[in-house]
């Protein structure tokens, strides 16, 4: 039994390749350890390097179906249902996600995030500076994009904005994830794109907060210092019991993905502190409504 809100897995296409890739990797690792086979021995079997085995087991690369079946044979996995499940997952892992056509404007490290976001069942975020990408209006998204890409031509800016809006389809799909966001008051006060854009953004936020699968909590200035000394971060949860939570921390030119127990524990603890310290969802809605009234 999982602790998630939702039991049903999503169809392979909607899920994208990321979680199948993680699942294949986790199971290959488990079978290899159980068979007491070293990464070197496994690498020799499929004429690859030791680091390729490690990247496969961490779900970081595409798999060749032949490599997966050869490794399963080497690990003594002969059970036909198990083998065929893994082959199916391998095929899903190689299906391009909806975002693949934006490859030209997207860094690899961000592409991985889109895969995780698309597959997650619960997305918890803390936002210090900006409203989260899933909640941005087109004008706000354009203003944020222009801040980050000052020298980009107009058509590239528009493609970036369109990618961001396309991401939001997730919230309108048939089986959306639960998005649970704590937003620092600073992100709500900063008039990105100007006062009119910001006001429309706050209106949009109130509308989003009314969705059953969206929770918005404001961390007001009046709370003083709070637990997230480090800045914005996201915790992604997946309905598959085998797949651990992933913490995502975006930097200017790269991103961190953490999935080790000790890291996830720490970030989950900070997120829990933030969620209990912030205004409740009902009080947050009143808080934002009051901000709108005052502008």
């Amino acid at each position, binding site marked *: 039994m999982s*602790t998630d809100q939702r039991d049903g897995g999503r169809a392979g296409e909607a899920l994208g390749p990321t979680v199948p890739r993680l699942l294949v990797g986790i199971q290959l690792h488990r079978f290899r350890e159980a068979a007491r086979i070293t990464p070197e021995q496994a690498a020799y079997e499929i004429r690859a390097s030791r680091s390729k085995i490690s990247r496969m087991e961490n779900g970081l690369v595409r798999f060749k179906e032949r490599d997966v079946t050869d490794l399963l044979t080497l690990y003594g996995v002969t059970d036909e249902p198990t083998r065929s499940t893994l082959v199916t997952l391998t095929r899903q892992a190689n299906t391009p996600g909806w975002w693949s056509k934006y490859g030209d404007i997207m860094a690899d490290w961000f592409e991985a995030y889109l895969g995780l976001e698309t597959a997650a069942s619960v997305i918890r975020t803390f936002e210090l500076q900006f409203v989260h990408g899933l909640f941005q209006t087109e004008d706000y998204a354009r203003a944020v994009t222009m801040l980050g890409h000052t020298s980009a031509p107009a058509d590239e800016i528009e493609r970036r904005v369109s990618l961001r809006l396309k991401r939001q389809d997730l919230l309108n799909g048939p089986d959306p994830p639960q998005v649970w966001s704590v937003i620092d008051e600073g992100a709500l006060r900063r008039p990105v794109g100007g006062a009119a854009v910001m006001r429309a953004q706050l209106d949009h936020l109130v509308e989003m907060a009314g969705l059953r699968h969206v929770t918005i909590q404001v961390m007001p200035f009046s709370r003083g210092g709070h637990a997230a000394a480090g800045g914005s971060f996201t915790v992604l949860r997946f309905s598959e019991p085998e797949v651990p939570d992933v913490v995502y921390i975006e930097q200017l030119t790269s991103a961190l993905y953490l999935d080790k127990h000790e890291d996830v524990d720490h970030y989950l603890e900070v997120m829990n502190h933030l969620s209990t310290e912030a205004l409740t969802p009902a009080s947050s809605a009143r808080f934002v409504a009051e901000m709108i009234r005052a502008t």
Partner: protein
Amino acid sequence: MTDVSASQGAPDPAGTGIDTTVPHSARIWNYWLGGKDNYAVDREAGDQYKEIFPGIAVVARTSRGFLTRAVRYLAGEAGIRQFLDIGTGLPTADNTHQVAQAVAPESRIVYVDNDPLVLAHARALLTSSPEGSCDYLDADIRNPAAILDTAASLLDFTRPIALMLMGIMGHFTDDEAYPIVSALQAGLPSGSYFALYDGADTNEAFNQAQEGYNASGAVPYYLRSPERFRRFFEGLELVEPGVVPLVQWRPDPGTEQAEIYSYGGMGRKP
């Protein structure tokens, strides 16, 4: 959606009250159920417990199964549309409102807990169908009058209500528990239902594991004899088959039969 506090005036908790240095009952339960909302301290305590009493994971699953069948019965055959669920715990697969609203989408649920972590999760993740409602009440069960008072502003007390105490009364000694339960039952209208389960003291390993847990600094939980469970239902009409091991309470065809160390039942207020 309403957040109300029966203990303080302010709707927002001032401190977080999250302690990650001692095991926490909702988080350890989440660990036994295979969830991901637990920390190292909970996993260690949970593993120690399992070493002494390996059946605990089955106990955890069994009790969730009972909750599901009980709520389905209440919303179905008993026709109940209002639920007062005290001691909510962290969200899991089949939460009270999901089971009730799957039968009757207009069901209204009041979740009550005094744990800030549980309340934050409930407000974010235990959200109602558009037809019904979920409210979240920050209150301590040791003050039943305050719970009833606040619940009266959220539920219609002229119509039957199902009071659910699922795995919570074990946190109290008999001297505390019986008066709390009678006070809550007394405040409900005629035709209301009461459902409860807790762990029983009928297995030596279970008793031993629980003693170890209670010595760990966690909020203690006491196992009760089956006879002492029946006292919670005095004055009520017991729903068949009465107060029994959970697996024997209206089992589904696939219900696991292995575990007989948690007891529960359901009664109707005449």
